[in-house]
């Protein structure tokens, strides 16, 4: 699994990246009450806001860690947004993106680098 400094995680299988927000991000948000995930077919650029996650208090953007085409958004989060808190790095995934440029994966943080980044916050 790879990570961004915006607290997204990325799991790569073949040319598809599954993306979600990290446990750290889910804990920091608190109770998630609404999630908007992108529809299949949508083209996203690295760094674009491609999903929204809302706690009781506020709405936050989720940024695409890589460029590509959305293969699938996690529709289950629309009716069960609390999954993001319960299992942020599993069932709480946001979208699967077909990776356009594999080299962007190399720019992401590995677990050790992300953990170190968290301790620096």
């Amino acid at each position: 699994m790879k990570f961004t400094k915006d607290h997204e995680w990325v799991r790569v299988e073949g040319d598809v990246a599954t993306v979600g927000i990290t446990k750290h991000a889910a804990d920091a948000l608190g109770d998630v009450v609404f999630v908007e995930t992108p529809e299949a077919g949508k083209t996203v650029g690295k760094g674009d806001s491609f999903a929204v996650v809302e706690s009781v208090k506020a709405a936050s953007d989720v940024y695409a860690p890589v460029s590509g085409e959305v293969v699938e958004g996690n529709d289950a989060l629309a009716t069960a947004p609390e999954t993001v808190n319960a299992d942020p790095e599993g069932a709480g995934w946001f979208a699967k993106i077909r990776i356009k440029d594999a080299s962007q994966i190399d720019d992401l943080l590995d677990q050790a680098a992300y953990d170190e980044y968290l301790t620096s916050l």
Partner: protein
Amino acid sequence: MTDEILKTTVLNAAHRALGARMVGFGGYDMPVQYEGVLAEHRWTREHAGLFDVSHMGQCKITGPDAISQFERFVPGDYAILKAGKQKYSLLLNAEGGIMDDLMAGKPDHDGLYVVVNAGNKDADFAFLQAELVEGATLKILDDRALIAIQGPEAAEVMIRHEPVLAEFGFMDCARLMLFGVDCYISRSGYTGEDGYEISVPNADAERIWSTLLEDARVKPIGLGARDSLRLEAGLPLHGHDIDDQTSPVQGALTFALSKSRKEAANFNGADRILKELADGPDRVRVGLSVKEGAPAREGAEIADADGNVIGKVTSGGPSPTLGRNIAMGYVPPAFAELGTDLKVIVRGKAAAAEVVATPFVAQRYYRKPKA
């Protein structure tokens, strides 16, 4: 993030010891949540929540002329208010705009005890200091903390400490010895639930806070749940739902205009306010039930059924009690009828909304049976 230096309440260390997440609010470093906003919200609706609201401004206005001078800026009738009662009111500027909303009461026989909002207190106190003349004196009670206990079990908890509190009805207040010290207490709050607000000496605040938390029915509640609770109760938040441009008529707070005071028309902004009462305001605060999509928060546009923008949301979010999204905002009176179909626009998407009555969740204040 800003570099603003935040003030602290005397309970700051207690919040940190409880693992609270702290945020800046009204110039203070305050707990936004302990366990989580939803759990705290639900606990308050089902049991008893304990809130540190020491950031709010407390003062006394005393002297032989205290009430008549205070009434120049507020539209409530405090002259006829009985001892042992408090009343919600509005501090009005010369244009009839709401500088702040407040609670003022007669807990003892020494003028008025007044509580104002944290973010406005410096301005409020400066205003009163400048406006009050001989015969009325402002005394800021910055030697006191303010603790609220709210929820259906709040009364049982408090009555165990002081049986006389069972005799209090909603909006009753007193100055009495509680926990061995001189307190002001009222049966009121900002959640829609039964409960009390207790003004305690700073030196005793931590002891009293901890004593109340020893009761298994009581949990600490942060500002996050305080906001969602007051939203469900339909209570406006100054600086958001009402401000110094908004009149009491626009703000749907005409209940705060006492009949005798309207007749006398002798308070700040009376001309504008009476004219709006007669002719109707240009816009009015309404409750909205958002029927689909994302929460509509402060700043979201409100549109009519045809999509024409007619107003703005001033606060909104999920209602944990109702399990749907609710909001407050301003629309022209023609769109303010209950049941009017409107839209709220969130991130460019229009979602169906309907004008509904507030409070969204029934208030459960304790009203004493009439003797």
